[in-house]
């Protein structure tokens, strides 16, 4: 009995989302909407900017957190302290941060500003995931390699990194997702109508929200999420292929 009640709760939730989404797509079948949205120059601009931001921000944050996590794992004595220090940025509210940013760096170009704030704010999650994975790693392999004479760099590239691939993948996906959240900082810094260089899909969606243009939002939002899932699925597939080829 209890179980039935218990898993109705998540079900209601899932239905809640799926139903609402479906009600919309059902209402507006046909590709007319898609054609008009995809031909809209702002949508294209937004798509271009979002793509540009993703392509710079996600590799950057990955690189940054991998280097930092390796360094943190190396300094294992302070592991917990360091981990929590980097996690701090997750709980700090963005609206307080942008106040400081505005005071000192308001002259910075918007695209780069958002990039820095993104790195600052969301590296907490990725560093947390990577350091946890690093700490769980089997030390025996490392020792064996060390005895065989592999230097620290070779050990990092051939043993450490391949060992934490699942964690890398998860943090990669999370980074993509959190890159969308940058709208919050973008709004706080530049308001509803930012510079053309940071006019992203989120701005497009939100501005159509103001006009209550349901048709447009749902079409844009759907194209947007399909695109996102295609990217993520592609990454997961590539990883699987890669793993199969190794094994």
């Amino acid at each position: 009995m209890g179980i039935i009640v218990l898993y109705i709760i998540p079900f209601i939730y899932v239905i809640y989302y799926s139903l609402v989404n479906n009600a919309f797509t059902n209402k507006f079948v046909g590709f007319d909407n898609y054609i008009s949205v995809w031909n809209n120059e702002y949508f294209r601009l937004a798509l271009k900017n979002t793509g540009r931001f993703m392509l710079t921000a996600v590799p950057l944050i990955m690189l940054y957190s991998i280097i930092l996590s390796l360094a943190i794992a190396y300094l294992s004595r302070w592991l917990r302290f360091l981990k929590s220090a980097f996690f701090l940025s997750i709980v700090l509210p963005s609206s307080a941060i942008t106040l400081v940013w505005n005071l000192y760096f308001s002259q910075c170009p918007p695209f780069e500003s958002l990039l820095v704030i993104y790195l600052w704010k969301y590296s907490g999650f990725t560093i947390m995931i990577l350091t946890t994975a690093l700490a769980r790693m089997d030390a025996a392999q490392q020792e064996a390699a060390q005895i065989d004479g592999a230097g620290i760099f070779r050990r990092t590239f051939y043993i450490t990194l391949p060992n934490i691939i699942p964690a890398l993948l998860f943090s990669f996906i999370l980074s993509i997702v959190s890159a969308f959240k940058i709208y919050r900082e973008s709004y706080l810094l530049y308001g509803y109508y930012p510079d053309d260089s940071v006019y992203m899909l989120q701005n497009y969606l939100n501005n159509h929200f103001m006009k209550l243009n349901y048709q447009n939002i749902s079409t844009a939002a759907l194209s947007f999420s399909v695109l996102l899932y295609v990217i993520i699925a592609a990454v997961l597939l590539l990883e699987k292929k890669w793993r199969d080829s190794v094994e």
Partner: protein
Amino acid sequence: MKKKLLRGCFIGFVFAMILIIIAPVILTVALSFEDGGKSYINFAVWEPAHLHALVNSIGLSFITAFGAVLVSIPAAFVFAKVEFKGRGTLFYLYVIVMIMPFQVTLLPQYIVAKGIGTYDSLIALILPGIFAPFSVFLMTQNLKMLSNDVLEYARLDTSSIFHVLIYIILPLMKPAIICTSILVFSEQWNAVAEPLILIETFRNFPMAVILNEIEIGDVLGFSAATVFMAIPLLLFIIYNEELLDGMAAYQLK
């Protein structure tokens, strides 16, 4: 020698980065005292709008965190420990919703809020927050790490699954529960885009939105920001241990 140098580099690098993380906090606090604390008095006495927004934020975030824990414990229990058909698929659905950008989920939220008449009230923000898949995900991953033997022993000793839930699982899951509620709390505390869409009346706006209305460079803004930051910061410091333990399970599979 070479090793020592490398270690030194690592230490320097890591601590420089930590300084960058902490810098905005220190700056905000320092700037807020620029006029000797006068702005704090102004903030408390002359700005009822800000105070009201702060109360909004507190109520909003605490209720959401509490509700999210209430919902995610049973849901996570089912996902982690109860075998049923389609469990994997359902859990994947959760993950898919979890990684969905909030702009996409905002539209359904808006429609629902309009439909059930919660639009323009704090409940419109609280409900989606409570049912956010993130908390269920984190809780499930934590519960999966809990050994099945413990549960089986408990099942043999007591007859009801609810007894097990209350006397065994809850105490063991303390870090996960605290970690989840802090993350949900700070997410709600931080929300800017959601209130902008779901709330119309100025009085109902939370602090995160109001803070942005204060003029750039105004000392008042920084004292408000200090107060605003202090609450999640305090939670972070008090529950640091639990936060780290709870996050250790934040992995896919």
